[in-house]
């Protein structure tokens, strides 16, 4: 069965520092992978997605993610974090042929001034 692990529950970075959020997935075939962001009290917003092709995908708000099949990872990166990036981030993988997503438990990002 598909699964997603986000090893870091909470990460704190300083504004202007680089960021990498980790995502490990388990899936037999080529996965459909997503990163979502949730600001406090809000719903989830799609940051970026990987279906096929170039393994480095660009998303909104200056984020990018790299798909590494050999390591079963889809890590999210940003070169310089802004205070407005403070939020919870969820990695997700598509489940089979029935349109569902399996979500990781999320990583909470705190940004220090």
């Amino acid at each position, binding site marked *: 069965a598909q699964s997603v692990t986000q090893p870091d*529950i909470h990460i704190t970075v300083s504004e202007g520092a680089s960021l990498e959020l980790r995502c490990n997935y388990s899936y037999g075939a080529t996965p*459909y992978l*997503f990163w*979502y962001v949730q600001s406090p*009290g*809000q*719903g*989830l*917003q*799609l940051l970026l*997605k990987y*279906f096929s092709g170039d393994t480095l995908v660009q998303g909104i708000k200056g984020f990018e993610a790299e798909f590494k099949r050999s390591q079963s990872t889809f890590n999210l990166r940003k070169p310089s974090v802004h205070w407005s990036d403070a939020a919870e981030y*969820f990695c*997700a993988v*598509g*489940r089979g042929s*029935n*349109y*569902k*997503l399996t*979500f*990781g*438990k*999320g990583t909470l990002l705190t940004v220090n001034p």
Partner: protein
Amino acid sequence: DVKVTQSSRYLVKRTGEKVFLECVQDMDHENMFWYRQDPGLGLRLIYFSYDVKMKEKGDIPEGYSVSREKKERFSLILESASTNQTSMYLCASSSHDRLIPYEQYFGPGTRLTVT
């Protein structure tokens, strides 16, 4: 711009009450989902609908039911609310379009408190 709306942002109900959470999407999507979100547990799928009047149980359906009489509307029903159903409820929708499989759009959420 795509839009998923939920009827209430905050809701307070008493134990034993029947509770209706409404979700409407304007994207003509075939699929609609109800999740609950709890700290440390992430998002857990309650129910899923892939067409009008069609539904499928998710990972945690106990204590919940759903209704989908129109394509744009998906309702979550708590027949007899209990305190352990206090949570954030998120609705999402997605298309059957094979070019964008699994891509879900979320509503703002309803924070339900059962006292």
